[in-house]
């Protein structure tokens, strides 16, 4: 009697279990469609053993993506830096729907040897380029999406303890150099991206004010493409954003103004 009841219970349990399993097996995407890769997430990619190196840099790219090709110069520096390291592995990821990723990299002259094709969306990578640094367990330590600003590039390089070969002079300018440029009457716009009130209170001679939130709309109408644009602001994250906005709008000569450190406070004995 007890056995019969048990048998029925086993049957019921088996049906429940199998339903759960079937559901999990057949509709995994339905559960994970909103999943996005984020720091602390653990990635599993068939055929990659994260423990093979201390850190792995994953670079998810797309052949049609203009920000990918726009970032080629940085990827070249990154790949060159990593090539000299034994404990960092660099892998380029392309969507499984694409092919000839190697040829694409060759065309961009980015020397990445290891190329994999996988479903980016199932990894939670929703847009390219995405760059992620993973540890030995496949856990994401840091990640960046989109074309990186110079400040973010150098942050990434220093995180990997790589030497950035790009001179800061290519994207930043100090006050002395600015003064020299002004004195030489070089074609430049000093762009103050702070709020109107802050600008009205005090600003550099000749600075032009376009608040950061208005920059995406106004840049094309008001900033000359053939002038050097020198971004002045208080907050590095804001000047960095302004740089990215102008860069993405095709301004070729954009610089962030680096201010002299304020004089150190004198300690009276």
């Amino acid at each position, binding site marked *: 009697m007890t*056995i019969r009841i048990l048998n029925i*219970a086993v049957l019921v349990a088996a049906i429940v279990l199998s339903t759960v399993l079937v559901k999990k097996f057949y509709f995994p995407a339905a559960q994970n469609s909103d999943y996005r890769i984020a720091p602390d997430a653990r990635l599993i990619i068939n055929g990659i053993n994260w423990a093979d190196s201390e850190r792995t840099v994953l670079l998810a790219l797309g052949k049609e993506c203009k920000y990918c090709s726009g970032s080629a110069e940085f990827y070249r520096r990154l790949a060159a830096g990593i090539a000299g390291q034994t404990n960092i592995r660099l892998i380029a990821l392309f969507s499984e729907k694409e092919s000839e990723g190697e040829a694409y990299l060759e065309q961009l002259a980015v020397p990445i040897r290891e190329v994999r094709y996988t479903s980016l969306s199932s990894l939670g990578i929703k847009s390219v380029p995405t760059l992620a640094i993973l540890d030995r367990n496949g856990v994401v330590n840091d990640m960046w999406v989109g074309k990186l600003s110079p400040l973010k590039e150098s942050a990434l390089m220093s995180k990997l303890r790589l030497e950035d070969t790009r001179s800061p002079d290519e994207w930043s300018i100090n006050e002395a150099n600015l003064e020299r440029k002004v004195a030489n009457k070089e074609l430049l716009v000093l762009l103050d991206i702070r709020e109107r009130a802050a600008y009205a209170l005090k600003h550099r001679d000749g600075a032009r004010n376009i608040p950061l939130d208005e920059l995406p*709309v106004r840049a*094309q109408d008001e900033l000359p493409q053939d002038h050097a644009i020198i971004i002045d602001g208080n907050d590095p994250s804001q000047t960095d954003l302004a740089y990215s906005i102008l860069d993405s709008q095709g301004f070729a000569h954009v610089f962030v103004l680096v201010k002299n450190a304020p004089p150190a406070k004198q300690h009276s004995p």
Partner: protein
Amino acid sequence: MCVIQKSVEQLLSSLLVILVTLSSIVQAQIQSQISTIDQKQAAQKLGDVPPPANLSSDDKPDAKLAVYQVHRIGEKLLALRSVRAKAFEIARLAAVLWKPDETRARFLFEKALTLTIANGNDPDARALSALHRRVIALIARSDAEWAKRLIDSAAKREAEDQSSKAASAANIGTALGLLEEDPPVAVQFAERSLTSGIHRAFLDFILTLRKKDEPEANRLFLQALNYLSQQPAVNITEFHLLGLYLFTAPDVIHPDARVMTVVEDIFVPNITADRPGVPRALVRAYLATAADILWRMAADSEQRKFSYALCYMLLPKSKNAAPDLTAKFDAVMATLTPQVPSGLTSDSAFRYINLPPTTTEEKLTKAENQPDHQSRDMAFLEIALQGCDKGDFKTARIAQGRISDLEASQRLAAIIDFGEGAWAIKQNADLLKAEALANRLPQGIERSILLQSIAKIQGKGPNKNLTEETVDKALKAARSISDGRRPFLLLTAAAQLANLKSPAVHSALVEAIKDFNSFEESALSKLDWAQTVQIGPMNARFPLEVANVEFRFNEAFHAVALADPEAAMARAEELRHENLRAQGLVEVGRAFLEKVPPKESEQNERPIQVDEDGMRKSASKTVMPLYPEDALRKREQGVAVIELQYDAKGDVVNTTVLEAPSRSIGDAMVTAVRQWKYLPSKKEDGTPVSIRGKLTFYFEIDKDGTGVVKNPKRYR
């Protein structure tokens, strides 16, 4: 078996554990769902609680009360005896009431319409018809389609020969009334006016429209030409006047001035000079139509004289702009010459048109050489008048000094001082100079007006006491005026005090009301805001205009009413003359509604900030700003940024100009953006939300001096 049973037991127990866990999870989920539903229901129930008293949920008591006050004012107006005062003021009140209470507003409009339906063709009936058209013009601001239907049915009512004229007048009158607020709808009415003739005011309309939207004005002009070219008989004078859109008289200060010049025994518009910046194609079109119309030859001998004068002025133009038409004009001239009086064909007939400009010296010498005192004085007066017109006060003073009639000379001295002060304010806001001139003036109208103009500018500054002192001086100066303009000046001074939030407004208002009551109604209507100087048969008129103050009853009373509507209502009712009382009450009604604080829900709710892409994508109606005329003249251009907030219904509720090349450009942007409409906005949970963001416009003047307002490149 035992083993099997044991393993089965193990399996079973583990499965049971799984089952229990699963069921508990499912239970928990169902529970949580139930609890959220409960919360939602509870929240809904709270919202469903009927609002206290008889307030609907989104109207605050103040708004209800204000609407109620306006209803009361409506009753008061309906009880007036004078039909005219009643009809028009009811309509004005209806326009004010339209937004908060459309039903009542429609009812009041209907009343005003019924009151102004005229029968017969006597002067009274004609005045009533004119009023009827003004009521329709007011309706057009709230409901343009209704206004169109009314114009059509009003035209049907008129006698056959009057109907087209009346319709044309109604349409163009409405168009002019709407031009400031809603140019696109105004253009619709102007176009309608063209189907039944070209009204005199049509030229006013396109001249004003050109400053706001030149292509549209040009299009209307061409449409008018097209209409005329299809008419069997064209009034040559009307056609000649239309030419003022393209041409003007030489040496005029204000390009829109209509200079009429005497040619033999007729008066014709002087269109011998070209207006700058007029497209050649328009000139050509005008000349081609002119050639056609003139070619048809007027049957009437009077009209032939006008035809000849027009042909005389257009012939040289055709040589420049349309050489192929010259032969046709020549032929018309040749045909007309034997048909018009010989005086007209002599060269001397057009001597005033071809007058070379004379220098000041020449004019003064010529005046000096006049044979007698009176002619000399008249000539000097003429020079002084021209000097004041052109801002040449030095010459005006020289001429004034040489006038021998002492009384006239003294009167003129005050007028010149006033003119120079007003000029200093208008041209460069030179307060010091204006103040010095005002202090020099004797007590009287010139001094009072100039001081009020100064006070208006001072009022924008931080020093309230100084402004109040100036207004006080203006009041004192006004008291020595003896005619019907005095109470108007007292009232505008009170309005300035009201703007300053000065307690002195009450006594000033009481004084003004008493003063209005001390005059007969006839002494208060048709006031001339100008000073005249009479020498012999010559009567020179100098307008008493200042750039920033207008001495109108309604505007002034509105300012006073905004300070304290209840008190202003009591004062308005003390007015002896019905028309003034009615006007005052309408202004009080407006003030009641305007003082209603914005709804609490709008105040407390934090708007969601979106970027400009979002602001532009969610707009359902957009209106581009118009380039302000004065900004164009001063060549002010550049970027303009406005911050705006719209409510959940999609109506713009708040605007702040963040950046603009000039104040007038900022104002133009506000006027346009206020007309934008947005799609209704909701949060994800369905609660209505208001949105805030910025819009950018570029005001640019192109090479040929045309002002263009552009969207940023990203949105073009």
